[in-house]
């Protein structure tokens, strides 16, 4: 049972790959699909590993991804990867 997940606004994504690279648990990868602007937005490769830490959201220059925690899981807000 993963602790969290991400919400992706695919149409805002510009495919930079920051979220993929800096996710501490390697949850994401860029998909093969294109969005309307021709970029490859990310999708979850290892959804079960997501902690909902939102580091991906902090890195995303286009406000296209947001990580959130599922309720009732008082996982501490980590600062992994830094």
């Amino acid at each position: 049972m993963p602790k969290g997940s991400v919400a992706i606004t695919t149409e805002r994504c510009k495919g930079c790959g920051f979220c993929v690279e800096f996710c501490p648990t390697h949850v994401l990868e860029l998909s093969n699909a294109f969005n309307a602007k021709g970029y490859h937005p990310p999708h979850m490769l290892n959804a079960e590993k997501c902690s909902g830490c939102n580091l991906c959201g902090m890195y995303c220059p286009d406000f296209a991804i947001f990580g959130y925690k599922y309720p009732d899981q008082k996982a501490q807000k980590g600062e992994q990867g830094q």
Partner: protein
Amino acid sequence: MSTTELHVHNPVEDLLRQDRVPTIWCPGCGIGTTVNSFAHALLGQQINLQKTAIVSGIGCSGRVSGYMNLDSFHTTHGRAIPFATGLKLANPELTVIVYSGDGDLTSIGGNHLIHAARRNMDIMVVCVNNMIYAMTGGQAAATTPGASNSTTTPYGAFEPELNMAQLVDAAGACFVARWTAFHVMQLERTMAKALKKKGFRFIEILSPCPTYYQRKNNMGDALAAMVDYKKRSKIKNGCPTWETALEPGGEIVVGEFVDREREDYLTRMRRQLGSHYSEFPPQPEEQESEGCEKEC
């Protein structure tokens, strides 16, 4: 697991003008990343957003003011600081943030930077340092590391780069820090701290410009720049600013370098003026306010 069952809301959205995103920034431009840290810092500090104004000059970085859902002022190239100075003096209740580029703040606006730091004007200045004049297409800036290529230095720049941290420290800033776009969490913390401090606060953020700086110098894409920042950065809080110069290809010294107490301009003004300063409560509103009776 469906996300629709939950109320999923990125708090950064509340700080953006929704009718203005997507931004004009290129894919992988680091400016947007810095905005995340900024937005979280503002939200985390419970700053009164109604009383917060953001001022920019001109440039890609200068577009930040226009995306923030605050009182936004997009002024002229280099002059965000004097505008912010006027704003703050006219209404000391405001939290005033200047958010602009390296060229804007240190070249054309360099004089204002020095003097606002010297006065210890109570404003926070965020400088996105992409080491280039990006908006105009990749010309050399005062911050372009020596020997880098730009459209106006096709044989490399013949001049060394400016260390802005050292400059504003020497001029008298009460808070000086540097991070890169890679350091999102540290940047948030530093911004939060700076937001609460009184006086001239300066935060430099190294940020990738894949379209011009990285490309002109065969440095790969934005992601490569971010990975490079991660590799080359060395956190040295409290490091004397003369030891923080950015050598091309060398160590990137990051951290909070200066955090000192100094009386800010308005506090000093009131102290020195003492009883010569009259508080000036506004006159009670008159009933008629339909313009003057005589024609103007």
